[in-house]
Each structure stands twice: as C-alpha cells, then as structure tokens.
C-alpha cells in the first residue's frame, strides 16, 4: 500500500469526523436558545428531503431535470407503503423489489 493512500484515508477520516464531532462535543453542553432548538428540530425533515428529491428528479452529471424516470415512479408506491406501515425494513425491501420489477418491465 502506498503511503499516499494512507495520507488520503487519514485526511478523509479527519474531515469527515470533525463536522460530526464538533457539535456533539461542544453544543451538547450548552443551553441553546429556543429558536435554535426549533431550527435544529426542523433540520432532519429539511435535510432528508434535500437528499431525496434531487435523487428522484434529476439524472446525469451535470444534473438535468428528468421527470417520470423509474426511480420516481417506484417512489410513489414506496412512499404510500411507508406512510401506511411506518416500517423502515419493509419499505427498503418493497422499494428494492419494485425497482427490480420496474427494470424488468420498462
């Protein structure tokens, strides 16, 4: 293994760990203002949606808007299933199955 690779993964490790670590290490001991806590409470919904929607609606590099791709079509029944069952495992299995099925049919 080249020493360059070791430097690479240590560097990647540090820049990945620090953003995960700093808030937990420093913020958790502070009393944050209510408005900040409210803001942080909305972050999960915001971030998951910001991760998900471009994944469903865009393709390629540079990204382009692509409506009605299998990813998005499969998302509809997967979304409904998740809403009804609230089962993370079930949703993952069903989503994979439907996407596999879509690949066969389309």
């Amino acid at each position: 293994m080249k020493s360059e690779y070791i430097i690479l993964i240590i560097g990647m490790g540090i820049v990945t760990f620090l953003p995960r670590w700093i808030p937990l290490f420093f913020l958790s001991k502070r009393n944050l203002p209510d408005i900040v806590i409210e803001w942080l409470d909305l972050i999960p919904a915001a971030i998951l949606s910001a991760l998900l929607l471009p994944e469903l609606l865009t393709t390629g590099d540079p990204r382009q808007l692509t409506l009605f791709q299998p990813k998005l079509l499969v998302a509809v029944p997967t979304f409904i299933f998740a809403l009804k069952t609230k089962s993370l495992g079930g949703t993952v299995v069903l989503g994979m199955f439907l996407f596999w099925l879509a690949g066969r049919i389309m």
Partner: protein
Amino acid sequence: MNSKISLTQGVTAGWPICLGYLPIGLAFGVLAQKAGLTPFEIGLMSVFVFAGSSQFIAVSMLSAGATVASVIITTFTVNLRHFLMSSSLSVFLGREKRTKLSLFAYGVTDESFAVNFIKFKEGDWDLDRSLVVNHIANFTWITSTVVGGYSGQFIPERAFGIDYALIAMFICLLIFQLRGREYVITAIIAGILAVILSLIIPGNSYIIIASVLAATAGVFIRKS
C-alpha cells in the same frame, strides 16, 4: 441487564439500515476494486471514513487521477452536512460523557442520524441504544465493502434492485420526520430548493444550502 435491552432495541431499530448498507457496501467494494484498491485498502477506508457517498466519490476521483488534496477537500464538502445532523442530535445528549459522545460522533451517517433522531424525539432512547444502531451499521458497512472488494465481480450490476435500497430508506426516514404541518412545509421547501439548486450548482453544496434555508423558513412559518 440493561445492556442486553439496549442491544436488542438498538438492533431492532438499526437492522433496516444494515439491509440498506449491505448492497451499497458490496457495490462500493466492486467499484473500489475496479479502481485498483485491495480489499484491505477498501476496509481501511471504510473504517477511517465511514461515509458512503464520499467514498464513492473518492474512488471515482482516484480512478480519474485526482490529487489527494482534491479528494480530501471534496470529502469535506460532501460530509459537511453531518455538522447539521450532529447539531440536531446534540440537543438530546447534554448529560452524556464527552468520550462516549466522541465515539457516537464517529457513527453519525444520514441514516443512523435519522433513525436515532426520531427515537430520541419519541423518548425512551439513550446513547447506548444509539451507539448500537451506529455500530451495527458501521460493522455492516465495513464488512460489505471488503466482501465486495473480494467477490464483487460475481454479483451482477443492478441485481435485486440494490440501487434503490438507500432511496427507499430515505423515503421512509423522511416520512418519520413529518410529524406536523411545519415539518411537511419545511420538507417541501427543502426538496424544491434542493432540486433547483442541484440543477444550478455543481457538487453537493445544494444539500446544506437548501436545508438551512428551508429550516429557517420553517421557523418563521411556525412563529407566524
């Protein structure tokens, strides 16, 4: 003993994450092996970094001949969003020891964050249980990437709908977060902004920008 309950509850909450990581980890192993990494090197990266999307990007950059510095900088920008996630989690962890918090920080991924956050929010959750979630996910990730590096060439691409595992997980994790009107509105704003920004700005900064703007808008909407 309490620890046994923590383990059981952690595994119950975390196994779907493992199910999602397994195919992605295998896929990463295959890709990394094709890029010239040995299974040992692949495993080492998974241990040190433990961040799926940035590992994929790193390997594709390496195959394209990118410099070490540019890969590290890209990794930083891709994973900066975890700063927001750890901040959200920190609200629940005021009484915990900092050594344990540091160990917990290592395992904060999009998926473990979303599962742990919702569990903390519902109450009846603690750092031990969340550590179990993080570390079974971590174990699955490391193992599957190494296995992918060894045997990946035998697994056909796009088999079993594996490309969809994480998307389906995000769909369900998002639904868990939609606990009221303001969350739904925030999510819609974030999603629309993210799509628009992702079309305009190259890279992954759209995730953070859209999330920060949407959560800020959400706070104002809640106030009004």
